[in-house]
């Protein structure tokens, strides 16, 4: 993170991140986001100065352990109910605008 934080986030980065996340943002607010994101990274850079050599890296914020499920099929076919609320279906398929590979 340290390297990124030193370079302030520019408008292109904001636009690229917005595109990857499919979020539409006003062109007026791009520079605003850029400075806010830079602020977050600067804070991270500040924290980098703390000696953490004796701290175990945090892989997950919650200190608990996942409970597991038995491998049993308990779900039934509810296709009809789900497809009732879908915008477009045909022959059991959900239809979406054409995606060409």
């Amino acid at each position: 993170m340290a390297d990124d934080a030193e370079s302030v986030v520019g408008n292109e980065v904001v636009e690229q991140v917005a595109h990857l996340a499919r979020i539409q943002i006003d062109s007026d607010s791009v520079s605003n986001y850029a400075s806010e994101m830079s602020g977050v990274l600067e804070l991270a850079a500040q924290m980098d100065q703390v000696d953490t050599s004796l701290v175990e890296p945090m892989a997950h914020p919650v200190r608990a352990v996942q409970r597991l499920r038995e491998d049993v099929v308990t779900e039934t076919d509810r296709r009809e109910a789900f497809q009732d609320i879908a915008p477009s279906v045909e022959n059991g398929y959900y239809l979406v605008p054409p995606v060409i590979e």
Partner: protein
Amino acid sequence: MQWETVIGLEIHAQLATQSKIFSASSTQYGAEPNTQANAVDLGMPGVLPVLNQEAVRMAVKFALATNAEIGKRNVFSRKNYFYPDLPKGYQISQMSLPIVGAGVVPIELEDGVVKNVGLTRAHLEEDAGKSVHEEFHDATGVDLNRAGTPLLEIVSEPDMRSAKEAVAYAKKIHSIVRYIEICDGNMQEGSFRCDANVSIRPAGDDKLGTRSEIKNVNSFRFLERAINFEVERQIDILEAGGEVVQETRLYDADKDETRSMRSKEEANDYRYFPDPDLLPVQVEDELIESIRSTLPELSDARRARFISELELSEYDAGVMTSDRYTADYFEAVLQKSGASAKLACTWISGELFSRLNKEGIELNASPVDADRFSQLVARLHDNTISGKIAKEVLDKMWSGDATADQVIEQEGLKQISDSSEIEKMVDDVIAANPDQVAEFRSGKEKLLAFFVGQVMKASRGKANPGELNKLLQEKLKS
């Protein structure tokens, strides 16, 4: 210039669980579209994934089978990208803390040399759904039955140096996952898919060249062809002074070529982060030990034992351990028949396999199971029947439920070993063929086969060949 090929493989093995990795929907292949896709699989708001314990056990089993490290604390992350067959907009996968760490997979090359291929890691993830492009007018159809099916993505080091080595490694992983019964290995149904990372560099160079990734190859033959095509393509580019572009390519089996998959060109930034819906998974030592105790003797170990203890040839031992079912069948026949390993192996790999091949059935669906087959081998072993008769008996067993003993009894096929009975037939044949006898005695010893044939015919194939030969030699030479 001499080029060196560098290949690493990512293999997606579909885990053979009953239900999905994060939901209780069925993973059964071939159902009507979307009949096995529940709210979790559809990515409905407010649902929570709950991890399937069997998927965890299977991943640990794989780690034990490949002597790989086990991620005792492993974490699920979200891999973000947009595609219609991924309804949540992210795939739940593992990134920095996978369930399986580094391991080693020995592969045997054509010249018999064993090469160790490094396993980088293997992680659990969910499969996406399927998009159908051809069947609909101006639309893509999405079937989410496969969405959420558990996958183990097995990543190798870039240790392979030819398409042949890559295929040998892929086959080895295929054999391991089937042997430990965590994946059915069905490549047509997509249960076992390979992505190949291919690059070339001047021979002797340490630095890796720019690689391309060939996606979703679903047969070993295509894997070899796709890699060979890709290597040639990259050599052509570099020798013409160009540069290889890092990209994802698809193999087209009809045209035998790879081509660029442009749609994914900017999808490389997946923005992984830990999935807040799932807690870290703790794999306890107790669980590891309980799985270790269920691990079968693996193919390599079994093969070595067949060679050292049963004195099978390397080739025969390889055939008898090609998959777990074959090895189990062979050992069951060996044990119940009391015959030698060589005899059991010859009859399984010969008569049994050729009948199965001819009818296109797998050993586990054989009309003659190990129990019945062992009796046939036992009767060969104790000389009740000859090899020729055994084939006839097997034919009868194939089309019905009768045991070998019942067929032998009903058809009167028991071998004649009583020397007085054979002696009489030998005498008759000698008396009926005076010319041939004279020729034989004047030195034409090849005629022995003629006499053997005649006596066999007279006995309807039932004369004990050893006894018959002995008697014939005695009588003809006297």
